[in-house]
């Protein structure tokens, strides 16, 4: 994969580049500011870009804004946003266009390199990778909580992992269950929430996220 790394702190940028290259992917460019990131996104059109939210010149949400702007130009351009904190507000903005190819993870998710690179590949393929912390907030705040009361505990777990962007197979291995057990749970919870199950897992995840966002 051709990957862009946008991060202003040298140590982190260097670490990310090394980690990505260790998994056999190619870092085509690095960027350290918001404008640089936007420029690289539009000209290089990488397979996926890893972008820090807070970057110069304003040290506010430069990275996030660059990612959103680039995706308005090129819909579905895969971006994986990294941040020291996760906000539902930002997750909603990233998911709003409904095209997928979006990731939003806490910086410490790189501690588990396998899972991180897995998430990167999933986003590059048009899937989603949402941090468990964002999903936990989505599932536990506001009116959604009451609507999810009808789910069993196991269905709740499956829903959370699905919302993170995992496939049935990945959910099965995380929960130590068989894939057929997972698909039974998904059918049940889709029925309870009144959603139509979709064959492609990406579209299914987007449907779940749209439901939670509503």
């Amino acid at each position, binding site marked *: 994969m051709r990957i862009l790394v946008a991060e202003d702190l040298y140590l982190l940028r260097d670490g990310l580049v090394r980690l990505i290259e260790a998994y056999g992917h190619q870092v085509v460019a690095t960027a350290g500011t918001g404008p640089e990131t936007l420029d690289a996104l539009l000209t290089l059109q990488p397979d996926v870009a890893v972008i820090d939210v*807070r970057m110069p010149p304003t040290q*506010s949400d430069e990275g996030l804004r660059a990612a959103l702007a680039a995706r308005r130009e090129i819909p579905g351009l895969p971006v994986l946003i990294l941040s020291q904190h996760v906000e539902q*507000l930002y997750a*909603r903005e990233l998911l709003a266009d409904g095209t997928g190819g979006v990731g939003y993870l806490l910086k410490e998710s790189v501690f588990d390199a396998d899972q991180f690179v897995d998430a990167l590949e999933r986003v590059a393929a048009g899937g989603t990778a949402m941090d468990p912390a964002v999903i936990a907030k989505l599932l536990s705040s506001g009116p959604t909580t009451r609507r999810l009361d009808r789910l069993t505990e196991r269905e709740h777990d499956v829903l959370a992992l699905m919302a993170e962007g995992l496939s049935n197979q990945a959910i099965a291995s995380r929960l130590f269950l068989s894939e057929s057990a997972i698909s039974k749970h998904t059918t049940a919870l889709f029925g309870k929430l009144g959603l139509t199950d979709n064959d492609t897992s990406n579209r299914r995840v987007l449907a779940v996220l749209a439901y939670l966002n509503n």
Partner: protein
Amino acid sequence: MKRMGRFGLDALTGLWRAGVVAAVTVLVPAMWAAAVALAVLWSDNPWSWIPLVMLPAVGSLGLAQPVCRWVRSLVARWTGTVIEPGYREPPPVTQLSTGYWWNGYTYASSAKQARQEQEWRHKLRDPATWRDLRFAEIVALTAGLASLVPLAGIAVAVAGFATSSYVVGGLGLLAAIGTAPYAWRLLEPVAVRFLRPPPPSLADRVDELTAQRANTTIAQAAEIRRIERDLHDGAQARLVALGLSLATAEKLMDTDPRQAKALLQDARAGAATSLTELRELVKGINPPVLNERGLVDAVRAFALDSPLEITVDAEPVSLDPPIESAVYFAVVELVTNAVRHAEATSATISISRTPDLVVVVEDNGRGGAVIRAGGGLEGLHRRLAAFDGTVAVTSPAGGPTRVRMTVPCESS
């Protein structure tokens, strides 16, 4: 007929109100009368001057404030004219590093004692105390006497009819009915003239600012101590443990690789935990969204995470960072109160510039919130006061609670 009826009703209410005014205003003169009576009664006792001096002195001071409070509430209820009490806030009672408590005047060994000692000292220095005292006398001689007219009329009427002098009785009744609708009305102008606090002087303003500065300094120091403690017990301790795990893992790498691997995993988990702790700490100091997006989006982000169903109605505003931060934490505190104390299920937050910043937080909880000394709302009020902001709370029992915060801003 209808006009007659209304006049009758006016006369009845007037009579009732005149009675209330007379009862309230007669308290202080009645006490003087009691003092004189006691002095006369004990006139052969060489100590008889004591009640004559002590009773009016102590009694007037003690009674003036309740009398004024009643007058203020009566005037507000009958005429709608609100007269601000205008008492000065007592300076905060704070613990010094020596362990003693300072109340602005004296040191004491306990907070309770410091508050008790502060009470009278503060009252004697507050010009409002002396204003109340003066008013208690003035109101008795003006509105009090006026309200006695219809009551005297009734007395004459009763006496007249009882002794069968019907002319005197009739005149008394006529005087009572004729004056009843008007007699109590003197209370309002007298109260407005003599009870309303004078517009704040520059000296008052200096006092207020001095108190605010002291409050802010104390709050800041407490906050810094909390941060230091959190870092010391949290992240710093964890980093030490992390270093230990790594050092041990390094040592065991060759001899016991399995144990070394387990230690490395521990180290990784420890690093993740310290990050979580640091994130919470940072959020408490200055939420990152506030820095990245400003007040409105920070409030939106907070609303999304809240267990309540919150509607945010806001126009984009740009403010100085200290004001943004103070208002943000005020909103967070109000919503937390709504969840914790009022058992609310939904809330609305509105933010607008008019050109002052006006933030209104309303919940559907059970109400009953009051600004109590030392309570959360008072702290909120004090933090906003540093920016000349004000807080108005309406929270009837049974709800809803509506808090309106206003912070003056120069239009930019």
